[in-house]
């Protein structure tokens, strides 16, 4: 039978081999669980919500104009500039803003409890029918009960050969910043699998609007 290997508590070789086996089973189980999770996580193709959508530049709205609605991707496309007068009823410089310039893809789901908010043209803002959350064109919250600004998807600018020219970066508030589109942008790509929560800045209803 087995000789006792040198060990303080009298571990025999046979017992030791069992423990090695047990360890290998444990590691295998870990690997298997990891592979299983990889197997089970759903993947989305281009054109499916959860995947990427590639749109031509013709859908880009003019600066500070009402947003472009893309229901399949569950997002609004906005083009904002808070430093100019045009469209200031929809987008303006407010305390805590900084310079906001460029495009963003805003998730259509309200950050309060998950309803789909609407763009209300007459009031020049997003309004949620469930509990009255209101947001500015760029998604910053105007009125409670919105707990944070609207969430955004990653936006990429592509040239005509679909090479990436620029992509959204994460700002100080943890959300995607607006993306300034390079001049030779031919396509916009929105990755609906990559979403960042909106930041929590002070409600805009606390401040007067500064549209002359």
């Amino acid at each position, binding site marked *: *039978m*087995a000789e006792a290997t040198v060990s303080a508590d009298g571990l*025999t070789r*046979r*017992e030791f081999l*069992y*423990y090695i*086996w047990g360890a290998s089973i444990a590691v295998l189980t870990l690997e298997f669980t990891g*592979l*299983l999770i*990889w*197997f*089970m996580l759903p*993947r989305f*193709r281009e054109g499916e919500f959860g995947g990427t959508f590639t749109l031509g530049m013709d859908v880009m709205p003019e600066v500070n104009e009402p947003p472009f609605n893309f229901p399949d991707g569950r997002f609004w496309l906005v083009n904002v500039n808070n430093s100019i007068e045009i469209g200031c009823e929809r987008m303006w410089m407010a305390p805590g803003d900084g310079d906001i310039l460029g495009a963003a893809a805003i998730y259509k789901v309200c950050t309060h409890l998950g309803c789909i908010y609407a763009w209300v043209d007459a009031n020049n803002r997003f309004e949620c029918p469930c509990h009255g959350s209101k947001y500015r064109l760029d998604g910053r919250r105007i009125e409670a009960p919105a707990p944070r600004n609207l969430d955004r998807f990653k936006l990429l600018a592509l040239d005509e050969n679909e090479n990436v020219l620029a992509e959204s970066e994460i700002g100080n508030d943890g959300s995607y910043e607006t993306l300034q589109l390079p001049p030779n942008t031919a396509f916009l790509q929105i990755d609906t699998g990559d979403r960042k929560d909106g930041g929590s800045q002070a409600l805009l209803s606390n401040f007067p609007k500064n549209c002359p």
Partner: protein
Amino acid sequence: MATFYEQVREMGVKQATIAKADEIVERVTAGLNTNDIRSALKGDEPRRPNPRLRPHADGFWFHIRPSFYHTEVTHIYPTFRLGWLSTFMFVWETITGIFLMIFYTPRPGTAYSDIWNILTNVPLGALMRDLHRLGAEVMVLVVALHMLRTFITGSYKVPRQFTWLTGMLLLVLTLVLSFSGYLLPWDQLAYWAVTVAVSAAEAAPPAEIVGKNINLLVRGAPTFGPGGLLRWYLLHVLVLPLLTGIFIFVHYYKVVLHGHSLPPGREQIGEDTAKRVPKTERTYFTPDIITSELMWTALASLLLVVGSLWFYSAPLESQANPLVTPLHVVAPWYLAWSQGWLKLADKVFIAFIFIPALAVAFFVMPYIEVGKSRRYADRRVGLSVAMLFIAFMLISNWMGSPEYRVESSPDQEVFQELLPQEGHSVILSVPYEDLEIGTFEPGQEVAGNPALTDALREFEAAMNRHSCNLESDQWRDDCKPITGNDGTVTQYANNFTKDAMPDAEAVLIVEPEQHDMKRITLQIQSESPEGPVSTNTLAFRHLDAGYEED
């Protein structure tokens, strides 16, 4: 037992924690504390009273497992581990099946594309599918071998007749499980194989009342469609696994109740000593049987994984088309015998008399058999009958293949061998770059292109099998004329087939179709009694299609 707090006060935190852990281990294992486990791992004799028996007496998971086996049944002979392997395969299929269910919906419009989704968009999806399908075929084989072993060792005799009966039931359930799963990919292979097998149901006499309604129950409609797919899916994932699981328990319970049968030479004739196991001939479950079973689990898993990754690929043909039946529809190999019989006799006789009679004979055999001895020498008749039956089944299996009696015209046979509508194709497996644009003859050597040359050689071999030589000096067999009653020649034969094309000329033409796709035409021209005849078949080969791996 003292509470944890009291124990801490008594012996300090460290000791109390160790004692508590030990207590938990003993509770979880239903009777073994850490020292008992260690002593088992070391191979020491157990302490008295033997704690290793308690998980079997008191625990749930070990309750049905015997606390010891007779040492003689723990070796490879006589069981070859086939019963254990059958159960392992059932668990294997259940687990891989459940994972596949995550990505499959049983609806004709989506089932096929779900399979492609598993292959193209699910990480390790192809592996999971291959594991499941390979596992199914292995399970059928293992269950059949287990039945053969049980017959040969006479283990079905008194008192184990009911065990055999439940085993036969499990065999039937395994076959139906495999067959119901066969339909689910909803490709041409699945659809037509199952249609053919089930079509006998419609003829159940009296056909207008019973047959028609049995057919509607089985297919959910006069032919397979959404209703049929859903019914067979429910059978496959719910009803049949449940029944199989239940009967596995019944079957195994009976095995343990009577004691696993010993090798025939070990017992007196007519006696069954499996239950009275002397202490010197016991192999205890803990640790020896557990170690064995764990090792076999590891080996079987390894073999199945290696087999699925390198040797086996689950087939997938074109989407099921209820209006087009491809040539050479074939039942899966474990049912090919029935297809063979259906070529010989009337389907009502086969499906409702012959096969049921066989099944009944198998089920009741232990109850009507008279011999008491399990020894091989005393069972020459039975063993000979078994061997003859196996030979008969193997021949029936061959008869189920298209080679028997399903020959189309010789040119179609050549096309089917080289450019079939479905399945592996000699020509399409040639790598895309090696399919040079041009016209090629059978057996032609293409310089610097061994893949194409090999394919052309197979082309030549196929032409040889199906054509013959009337006048020209080619290397084929001479045509042997077959004359009709009025003396005119009706067809020609060669040494291979009764229907051979005389003086057939064939070419393979490869042309560009699109920038990354080629068009392949096979053309055969031969002389028929009515004059020259020319047929061709067409296929397309895309750069990415990946036929080299099929």
